[in-house]
């Protein structure tokens, strides 16, 4: 029930955004929505790559600190959900930076 409710909210706001974009003439180009969806998928993929890289680096640093110093760092530290949000930001920035449309 909760899932259905949440998905309905997202579907409703997406439909409203699409309607607005069409009315303002931002979405006239054929295939624009498909291209945007592919871009979004690419961004999600990049976010996963950054997230896994951050996790792996975190685990490596944790194990190294434990091995060479008397300090204790918990492995769970790298599992903080904010790391996922930061990875998404990294992916967005990286994708925009690579995009030829954003270059001078």
């Amino acid at each position, binding site marked *: 029930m*909760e*899932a259905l409710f*949440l*998905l309905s909210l997202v579907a409703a706001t997406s439909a409203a955004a699409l309607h607005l974009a069409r009315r303002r003439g931002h979405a006239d180009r054929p295939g624009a929505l498909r291209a945007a969806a592919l871009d*979004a*998928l*690419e*961004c*999600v*993929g*990049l*976010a*996963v*790559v950054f997230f896994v890289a951050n996790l792996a680096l975190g685990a490596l640093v944790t194990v190294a600190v434990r091995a060479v110093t008397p300090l*204790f760092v*918990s*492995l*769970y530290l790298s*599992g903080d959900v904010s790391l996922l949000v930061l990875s998404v930001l990294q992916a967005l920035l990286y994708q925009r930076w690579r995009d030829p449309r954003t270059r001078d």
Partner: protein
Amino acid sequence: MVGALALALFGAVAFTPLANALHGRLAARPQVGRADAIVVLGAGVSTTGTLSDSSLRRAVHGIELQRRALAPTLVMLGPSHWPVGEAPIRGMLARSLGVPAERIRLVMGGRTTREEAKRTREELGPDVRRILLVTGAIHMKRARALFERAGFTVLAAPVEDTSGGGVSPEARLALGLRLGEELLAQLYHRLAGYI
């Protein structure tokens, strides 16, 4: 390709009972019986002295088992963090819920499950063999292996790993993350030769 897979995985975990089904397969079943001690593993406390959800669930379950007279000693674990320790707070909770002070043992200093097993063996001595181990249902498999390595015979007394019952998308995601975390931890322990 990675993005599509990630989205599919997100959808499957958050919006289907996949995480619940996996949890059902991996979670330990209770084997509650008489033992020499009830051992409640640590799960975190804030710097202001508030037990984490998981720590509280474990502590209350341990207290309940002790009140059912399943073992003479209730052992509360937790790392010794400044300014407050998890074990002393759980000890106070147990006393306030009617467990006699002489039946409570506090074992501090274990920062990982492996260290907790070692510290418990050191503190309880060789006479305590059979323990009721209280921890999360998914964590139980690894914890049991570590405590058996420390020389204990383990009876599982698992508690829920996450709050929320795992029915909302958020709770299912939390459960999925917890499962992933535990599977990685098990892999690490196997590779390191700890279990």
